[in-house]
């Protein structure tokens, strides 16, 4: 246990001192990159909760990510400036949306579940794009909200994201080791047996789906603050695929899978984009190698059993 938290603690320390160091050495760009990585780490971890721990292969996770961002953008557009209103509203909307989508999708299994989650996400994508007053396909500018306690500039946003990420990961660590987490993993392991010993499968999966949707919404919210813009791309199926790639790369059902996957994928993309316009080929190759030689992802190389 202690050893497991040694590296993350060291990393946290590094992340805490990173902005002042980067800013004083003229590397502000990297503060932004790390911020973006942390946002995706949050989103990928939420997907990992249902995909990895719950065995629910949702191909529509971008819906919640994007709606989180759009809620923030639309509310500021409509004159709401307080983060204390925007944040809870966005999270609640994403949770309700996940409740609705999950309630329907979780009646299906396997490939059908993958397809129906994708279908819902696509529906939401086209609905949002059809709202011309909210930018349509051009997306919508999203001014940063006011917290009152502090000005939300690039540096405070960085620390805010870090705080949210750490808080959420801690809660997730508690969750996966709780009664609920144990049942969720048991359902992934053997659904019929879990039902036969008295667990209402559907309820457990739905609750997990809602939690994941809300956390993804939170990540989308931070994304809108980060880019000051809500793009339809955040809702697109490619985004769902992107998040899924992060989870697979990092380690499905491994606690640090989402964080590792987001970090490695975004850094690799960043590097390859500098080198070649065919960077996607490189990303594809790396993913292929991971799937073939490390089916439990990067995290699986470090930890043998999921914690």
């Amino acid at each position, binding site marked *: 246990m202690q050893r497991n938290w040694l590296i993350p603690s060291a990393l946290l320390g590094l992340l805490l001192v990173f902005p002042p160091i980067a800013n004083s050495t003229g590397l502000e760009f990297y503060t932004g990159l790390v911020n973006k990585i942390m946002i995706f780490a949050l989103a990928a971890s939420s997907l990992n909760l249902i995909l990895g721990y719950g065995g629910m292969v949702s191909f529509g996770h971008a819906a919640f990510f994007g709606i989180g961002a759009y809620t923030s953008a639309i509310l500021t557009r409509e004159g709401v400036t307080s983060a204390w209103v925007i944040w809870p509203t966005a999270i609640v909307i994403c949770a309700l949306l996940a409740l609705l989508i999950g309630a329907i999708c979780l009646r299906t299994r396997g490939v059908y579940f993958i397809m129906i989650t994708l279908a819902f996400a696509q529906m939401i994508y086209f609905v949002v794009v059809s709202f011309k007053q909210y930018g349509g396909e051009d997306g919508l500018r999203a001014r940063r909200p006011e917290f009152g306690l502090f000005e939300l500039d690039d540096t405070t946003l960085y620390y805010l994201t870090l705080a949210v990420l750490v808080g959420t990961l801690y809660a997730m660590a508690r969750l996966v*080791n709780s*009664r609920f987490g144990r049942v969720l993993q048991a359902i992934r*392991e053997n659904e019929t*047996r879990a*039902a*036969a010993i*008295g*667990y209402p499968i559907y309820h457990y999966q739905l609750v997990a789906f809602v939690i994941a949707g809300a956390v993804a919404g939170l990540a989308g919210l931070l994304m809108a603050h980060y880019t000051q813009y809500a793009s339809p791309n955040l809702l697109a199926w490619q985004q769902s695929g992107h998040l899924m790639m992060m989870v697979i790369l990092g380690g499905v059902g491994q606690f640090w899978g989402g964080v590792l996957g987001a970090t490695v994928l975004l850094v690799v993309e960043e590097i390859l984009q500098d080198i070649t316009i065919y960077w996607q080929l490189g990303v594809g190759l790396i993913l292929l190698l991971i799937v073939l030689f490390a089916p439990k992802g990067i995290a699986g190389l470090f930890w043998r059993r999921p914690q």
Partner: protein
Amino acid sequence: MSLLTLVHLTKQFGGLAAVNDCNLTIEAGEIHALIGPNGAGKTTLINQISGALRPTRGQILFDGHNITHLPQHQRVRLGLARTFQIINLFKSYTILENLELAVQARNGSSFRFWNPVRYEAHLREEAEQISELLGLTSRNHTVVAELSHGEQRQLEVGLALACKPKMLLLDEPMAGMGPEESEQMVELISNLRRSLSTASGNSAPKNPTLTILLVEHDMDAVFRLASRISVLVYGHVIASGLPEAIRANPDVHKAYLGDEGGRQR
């Protein structure tokens, strides 16, 4: 007093009636064996009683409740637990982890998100007791996939027992077993009720004897264990009664035990 009653129970798969107008009464406290040739609908019947399948027609009454339309988890809560013909366990978990999950299911809500479940010592203690009852204590920390076939079968029964049922549905608990393992299973089943009623004597006094519905092909085991036997043929109960009566019943001989001189399988 009857614990389980099936009334005109029918399950249709397309044009095929796997269970056809089945009437059956199981008394509290008995070991009731259900026998019948392959494809007679025995597992389909178990699936309907346990709630894994919905009947096309008919009713299932259990312990004073009409459970025909109840979801599976509520039937378990009422005291109806099952095992599977094809071994169906949490394969990458240890014996204790398997049992703890089943114990947890009936010990308070599992919609708890914060406290680590491994600190709940009472779950582990109960799991250890059940493992002891099964005679698997020395294997407590072995992962299911590494257990022998016989041990996995025992854990099948153990997981159902961990639900503290009033009634156990055992779907071919000896399937694929050698004679020695079968012998152990017969002993386990016949010892179960006694040891269980002493083990849970303080916590569940109103549930003294365990009723068992046993689906089994091993006729030796059936005639040694059963207090009553029913014979299912083409989804229909053609005979029901004491073992001697079933053994002597000419219809049963014709349909199941075989015309070739009553050869016992």
